[in-house]
């Protein structure tokens, strides 16, 4: 028992594993940084420099310093907050305080708006809760990372500090967002709408794919898969790729189905071929391509998209197979099946559906967030405003397709607007996007591993570039 727990038996009992030594130096350093940050506008803000430091503004200084004071208390007293978490929290608190002070620098000095100090105090408490949660488990974040990399990590249970942190985070977002009027901040508005729209568009298809995956798992017999698995690879791969025509979903839905096929014994190369072909060959996508290009080489574009898509899927499947795709699904994706012997088929389908949906869904959300951030921060003209050679144009549009993360059922209408790019570059956009974009990269990484994503990129980029340039040469 440390001196700390001896003096505070109740507190000590609850936090015994966490209480450590006082760190007065760290507390002083955090306090001093806070004072410097709060007083700094007198040097760099024009409106503040007209008046010097004064006791008249003590209320302003105190409210702005409060989050630093809380951080100093947690960091320095009884080791309540670990040094690494203090170091992580300090830049956040400093940056937000500076921004808040800058916002007040254009007006007459007065009491600061209470919002930034309150928000920062809540942020410090959230970080503290996460810190306590981690220290109750692995001891520290560096230890947790080491355990995970060494394969020693076990699933940590939920703790009260973590629940409180997550609750505070949700409250901060909801209450802070509403009271702070974040919907009047243009960047937040744009990001939120695009983020939510990609999620709303994609999740029903993820659910549909997960449902098909569950139905395949429960209702399709092992014998059917054994028959498919006995086919030679040169028949399995293109055969499964062509089966993609029967799957009217976008790329998010094909991943869980492909995963299920591989788990049931289909060769991984064939499963990958199906996964890449389905978002391009399905009738809805080809029809929308026809409509978008009607009056302008519609037949050429539809044929080229389907042909290059099939060739890409087949070639990728065969190459992945040659590169040793046998262990493609060593990553189980953290699926915990919650079904019991003797339970009905409906429940088993629901269990598989939910496992796939929850596993895939969070990576679709992460990809949607990245795509929304890119669209909010990067002007489209960075990619589309550059007149270049057909090859460089194709590469640019492929990069644009990767970042936009559009659904394959609508990307044709975006592609045709790129009139300054030749037909080959537009084709590259239409074939590469459904195969690899931000959200798909995260989804593939979670399902098959990052090595697969790297291999996929290495294989597909030259095929798409080469195929689109061939079409350009023939049709251009």
């Amino acid at each position, binding site marked *: 028992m440390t001196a700390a727990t001896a003096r505070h038996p109740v507190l000590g009992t609850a936090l015994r594993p966490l209480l450590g030594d006082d760190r007065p130096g760290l507390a002083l350093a955090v306090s001093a940084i806070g004072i410097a940050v709060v007083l700094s506008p007198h040097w760099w803000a024009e409106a503040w420099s007209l008046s010097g430091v004064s006791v008249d503004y003590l209320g302003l200084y105190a409210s702005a310093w409060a989050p630093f004071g809380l951080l100093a208390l947690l960091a320095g007293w009884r080791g309540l907050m670990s040094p690494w978490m203090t170091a992580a929290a300090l830049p956040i608190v400093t940056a937000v305080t500076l921004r808040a002070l800058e916002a007040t620098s254009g007006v007459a000095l007065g009491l600061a708006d209470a919002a930034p100090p309150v928000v920062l105090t809540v942020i410090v408490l959230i970080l503290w809760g996460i810190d306590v949660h981690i220290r109750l488990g692995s001891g520290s974040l560096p230890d947790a990372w080491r355990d995970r990399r060494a394969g020693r990590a076990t699933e940590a249970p939920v703790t009260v500090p973590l629940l409180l942190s997550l609750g505070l985070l949700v409250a901060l977002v909801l209450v802070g967002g509403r009271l702070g009027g*974040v919907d009047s901040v243009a960047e937040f508005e744009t990001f939120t709408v695009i983020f939510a729209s990609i999620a709303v568009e994609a999740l029903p298809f993820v659910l549909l794919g997960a449902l098909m995956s569950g139905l395949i798992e429960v209702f399709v017999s092992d014998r059917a898969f054994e028959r498919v698995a006995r086919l030679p690879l040169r028949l399995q791969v293109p055969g499964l790729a062509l089966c993609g025509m029967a799957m009217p979903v976008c790329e998010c839905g094909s991943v869980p189905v492909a995963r299920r096929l591989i788990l049931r014994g289909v060769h991984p190369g064939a499963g990958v071929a199906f996964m890449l072909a389905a978002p391009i060959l399905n009738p809805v996508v080809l029809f929308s391509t026809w409509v978008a290009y009607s009056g302008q080489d519609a037949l050429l574009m539809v044929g080229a998209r389907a042909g290059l898509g099939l060739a890409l899927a087949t070639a990728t499947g065969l190459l992945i197979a040659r590169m040793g795709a046998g262990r493609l699904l060593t990553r189980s994706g953290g699926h915990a099946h919650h079904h019991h012997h003797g339970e009905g088929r409906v429940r088993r389908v629901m269990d598989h559906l939910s496992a796939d949906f929850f596993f895939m869904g969070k990576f679709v*959300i992460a990809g949607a967030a990245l795509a929304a951030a890119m669209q*909010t921060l990067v002007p489209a003209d960075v990619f589309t405003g550059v007149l270049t050679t057909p090859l460089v144009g194709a590469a640019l549009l492929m990069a644009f397709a990767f970042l936009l993360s559009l659904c394959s059922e609508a990307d044709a209408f975006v592609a045709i607007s790129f009139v300054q790019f030749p037909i080959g570059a537009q084709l590259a956009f239409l074939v590469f996007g459904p195969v690899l974009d931000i959200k798909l990269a995260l989804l593939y990484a979670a399902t098959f591993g990052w090595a697969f994503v790297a291999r996929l990129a290495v294989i597909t980029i030259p095929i798409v570039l080469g195929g689109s340039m061939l079409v350009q040469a023939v049709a251009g």
Partner: protein
Amino acid sequence: MTLDWTRLVRGAALLAWAGFFDWLWLSGRAGDYVGPKTAWVVPFGGIVLTITALLYLRGTRAHEPARGPSARELVGLLALLAPLLLVAAAPSSSLGALAVERKRSSGDQRAAINRLDRTADLTLYDIAVANSSTEYAAERDVRDGVKVTIDGLVSKESDGESFEFSRFLASCCAADAMPYSIRVEPSPDAPPLELSEWLEVTGTLQSTDAGFVVVAEEIRAIERPSNPYGV
């Protein structure tokens, strides 16, 4: 009998998404996120997610004690709900002037509006495309002196003579929405305009070196329409 807490928490997440889709569908707010042609995704998602969530929650009672959700799973579920939290924090968000600036490209926008159902009245889309295509202008009778009533949002403030007026067109969702922009010359007694403000402009087309401009006779502020990404 005991509760399977992991199943309960997962089911609650499914129900939250189902509730969001149902709310979008019943409140008519789906148009803020998806285009008119893919609006079916919202009722489809609402129905399927609701049924899935209810069927999934039916199995919450467990015969034996089940392990609760891990910390990682709980954080993952919260991440899955991130879009719902952001929309709840900023419920009136929509694409505005910043999105027009970011999504503006120098491409040809004619193909996307070809699939729209033609209306007798000219839309902002028609005028914007006519500015880059004399053929389209002739086809849709976009010419000097034509009276128009159009709605859109202010995407650039007045430069002393005119302001930029825009509308988005989406095929799938807001992610692929493309802005269509024209210039409007406000009447002298027009109220001050704010960026991203939705307006209805009634005026007359006038041909200039920079294309067709709408000389406004009346400008009034309106609520954002239920279909901001199409007609």
